[in-house]
């Protein structure tokens, strides 16, 4: 049986998907969802980077299973982290922060999320320098 599951778009922007079952495409509005089958998930994994980069996520335990299938460590991959998780990572020392930021390819919108969280924290100069080097687009010294 091809059971349907919920595919969430946790982002602030709309994301479209095209699958053999949705040949004309479906727009998933920001912070909204659509229902998809396992076949569609497999198809999206093969034809796009939306699931691998954490732009679209399955609901609940299904996402953990999917991440395991893709070999993604959601605990340490910035693209799958909440503000709280990012805060924890930013609380480590500068070397750990540098290692974490360089360990995965981070989505630009996640970079913005990290920058936003970092600006709410009282970080030391070493960590600010690491962040500034990795994200020159944001001004961490202001």
């Amino acid at each position: 049986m091809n059971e349907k599951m919920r595919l969430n778009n946790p982002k602030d922007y709309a994301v479209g998907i095209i699958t053999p079952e949705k040949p004309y495409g479906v727009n998933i509005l920001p912070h909204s969802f659509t229902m998809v089958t396992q076949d569609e998930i497999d198809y999206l994994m093969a034809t796009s980077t939306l699931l691998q980069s954490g732009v679209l996520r399955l609901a609940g335990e299904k996402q953990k299973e999917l991440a395991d299938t893709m070999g993604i460590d959601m605990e340490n991959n910035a693209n799958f982290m909440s503000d709280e998780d990012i805060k924890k990572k930013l609380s480590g020392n500068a070397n750990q922060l540098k290692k974490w930021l360089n360990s995965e390819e981070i989505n630009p919108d996640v970079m913005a999320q990290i920058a936003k969280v970092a600006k709410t924290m009282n970080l030391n100069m070493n960590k600010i320098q690491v962040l500034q080097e990795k994200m020159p687009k944001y001004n961490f010294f202001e």
Partner: protein
Amino acid sequence: MAIQIYKDSEIVNVAIAEARKERIDSAVRENADKLIRDLASDPNPNNKYQIAQLVKFAVNDIIKRDTNYLDVLADVKRVGFGDKAEFDVKLPGIKAFIQAKGATTPRTKNAHKTVSLETLSVSARPVINIVELQNGLANAADVINDASFQMECAMNAFIENVLVNAADDWGSPYYGTGSGLVKSTLDPMVMHWVRTGGAIIFGDIGETTGIAQLTGFVANSTSGAMQFAGNIINEQNQNAVIGTYLSAQVVQLLNPLKEDGTDGFLFDKKKLFIVPTSIDAGMRPLKVVFEGDVFSTEATNIDDLSWEIRLDQYFNAAIAKGVRPYLSMYADSSVG
């Protein structure tokens, strides 16, 4: 008598036409080539300077013409050497209120911030063997063509990089993505700007050509098959891109191969930009400054007697977002 080449000299126009592979009268071409050979045959400092001037004027003219498209997409300022360009970025300003008669109207003022851009240099340094220039083996037109093309490519890639870097963390309707070109995702972004008066969609052919497939309608609900207008199919087959989509003009960005030995292209093949056309140029988020014209410096290398011309154009590009970005970017997240 020493030959002097000026910006509007006939030979500059011939060199430009030759570099652009335009049709030139053979006698005119022969005269121009002879003039360059004559200058090169007596390589005194003035003659070498004159050839460098010729290359500079021609490159400057070609770059100016080929970067004209920026006037439609960006807030472009051309300033003199040493001058600074200042861009006004509009912030939330004067508001009107509907209120009870005699109530106090809140005070608002017209607000803007000023952004100043320091310039960088886009530079090329072609080397010419002066003996080859004398005997006609080296062609000044080739140097002009290659130098201007490479300088343009470097500038365009820089500008595209500025656009992509700025837009990739915006929210809807300024940024959207999909596993391919998804009509229901792209349309609201296009309509957002068309609604304000008009828009231009531009990007690599891989994306602009896909727009034709979004024009179909499901007229027969039984078969569910998409139907396309005949003229769209013809236009697509003839030009690989349709002229308009949802009333927005569709423009294909020429995408040259990178000169780094890879098969990569200069511009991102997976991005589409949607730019409103009805807004004031000053409100466009992409700010581009050109400081002065192309200038040249020439020198002969004493080690191998090669003669080089260094060409520089000072410029810069940045995104300055005021109230809103006035630009949208669609990123195609499909692989391949």
